[in-house]
């Protein structure tokens, strides 16, 4: 059985415009899928709709079956227990996911306590273990810090630790490294890759950057103006795109890649 079945998903904004139109795809347990597109393509809205987190005013229709439960139209009360356990979310900007007034250890303790039922010193131990798992140095210090006291890369690691705390089956990452420096991005991608792989989790990786997506997934769905344009393996999307938009998008991504590769190749002394 598929972990996630999205069929004919539509998302309508208050002015009656469809921001996502008839998008369908599935994710099997342990499968990874990239959602690729430019700004306004509907890729993030599709990801939000999967877990019932659409911004106020946006209305989803169609069907999203997550772990056998219909998400579209479900009351918030029935979605809460699914979030974190079945499916969690990593956002682009970890500051929006973290409460600036609460020490990071306490924030992380919440989902861990709920999921594993730990209390007291066992809970404290579990929090430090979770921080250690995302390769944060000095877990004690991080646990006692607030979100604004640590770097962007460290914040995203804390957000990853929170998202993984309840051992979800599906992780949705929405541009999780776009706000990070390139070396930090490489570290966070490697960390995500290995954590998701170790736990046999499924993942939806949302990004505008084809090279970043190709680091994390093989299969990708290309979106434009709210529609799913083409789905396939990334090498195929690059080598033999079926849709003109995929071709244009792939050519755009390949151009800077080619310039970079050429500079690497033609070293010559000054």
């Amino acid at each position, binding site marked *: 059985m598929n972990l996630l079945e999205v069929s004919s998903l539509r998302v309508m904004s208050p002015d009656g415009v469809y921001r996502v139109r008839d998008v369908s795809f599935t994710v099997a347990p342990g499968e990874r899928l990239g959602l690729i597109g430019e700004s306004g393509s509907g890729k993030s809205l599709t990801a939000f709709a999967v877990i019932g987190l659409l911004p106020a005013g946006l209305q989803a229709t169609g069907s999203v079956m997550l772990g056998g439960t219909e998400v579209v139209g479900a009351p918030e009360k029935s979605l809460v227990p699914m979030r974190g356990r079945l499916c969690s979310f990593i956002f682009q900007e970890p500051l929006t996911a973290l409460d600036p007034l609460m020490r990071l250890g306490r924030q992380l303790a919440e989902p861990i306590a709920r999921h594993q039922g730990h209390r007291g010193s066992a809970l404290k131990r579990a929090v430090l273990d979770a921080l250690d798992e995302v390769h944060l140095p000095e877990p004690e210090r991080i646990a006692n810090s607030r979100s604004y006291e640590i770097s962007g890369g460290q914040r995203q690691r804390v957000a990853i630790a929170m998202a993984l705390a309840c051992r979800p089956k599906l992780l949705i990452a929405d541009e999780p490294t776009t706000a990070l420096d390139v070396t930090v991005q490489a570290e966070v991608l490697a960390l995500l890759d290995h954590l998701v792989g170790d736990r046999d989790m499924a993942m939806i990786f949302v990004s*505008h950057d084809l090279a970043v997506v190709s*680091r994390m997934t093989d299969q990708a769905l290309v979106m434009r103006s709210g529609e799913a344009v083409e789905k396939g393996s990334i090498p195929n999307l690059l080598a033999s795109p079926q849709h003109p938009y995929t071709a244009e998008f792939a050519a*755009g991504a390949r151009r*800077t890649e080619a310039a970079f590769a050429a500079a690497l190749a033609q070293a010559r002394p000054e």
Partner: protein
Amino acid sequence: MTPILGLANVSYAYRAGRTGQQAVQGVSFDIESGQNTGLVGESGSGKSTLLKVLLGLVRPTSGEVLFDGTPLDLGNRSQVRSFRRSVQTVFQDPYSSLDPRQRVGRIVGEPVRSLQIAHGRAADALVAEALESVGLPARAASRYPHEFSGGQRQRIAIARAIVSRPRVLLADEPVSALDVITRNQVIDLLADLGPSRNLTVLMVSHDLGVVAALCQRTIVLQAGQVVEQGTTSSVLGAPSEAYTRRLLAAVPRLPQI
């Protein structure tokens, strides 16, 4: 040939004298005519501080900004006026860098008025010409920024920057807010401005692919110091510093097909 713009042993410290923490330290480089230059580094490397120094917005704590080989003196009004005409800038975010309540013609014409380059019809003609050279119709002048897409807005920002016929354009991450297809179009535009308007670009960027596509020279900054500089092909192709190699290794690559 004398470089158009250069830094000679420039250091800059915010809150100088209190913490003594230097944002940039002993930085020297030249911008030569026709050599587009990429200034590469991660957050906190001092890129933005160097831009402020290069734009003459702040005085270096020590060292000099050299303009046509002469130290820039921010108190010398005639030198500063000539400097402002010659050195213009484009910012990262075309949504925040254009005043939403001014028509495009007024935005693009601002340097013409403030630098007293032309008046009336002659000024309008310069604006029309600048708009056309960035690929926008002259009639765009009568519209407002919100009527344009992100890529078009960045073209408007570039039109404003080139209207005074500067020789150097300092561009702070000029394409990082743009989608991939638009990004390539703006890179092409910046590359074309070199030969067509005798303009040299200094671009601050974290994206080595974009630098490779546009810049003949590359300067790598780390923690306020230049770690490596040279031709883009030598810095990227045969980096001599471990930090440069680390940056290069971190660049996400497309699968080989």
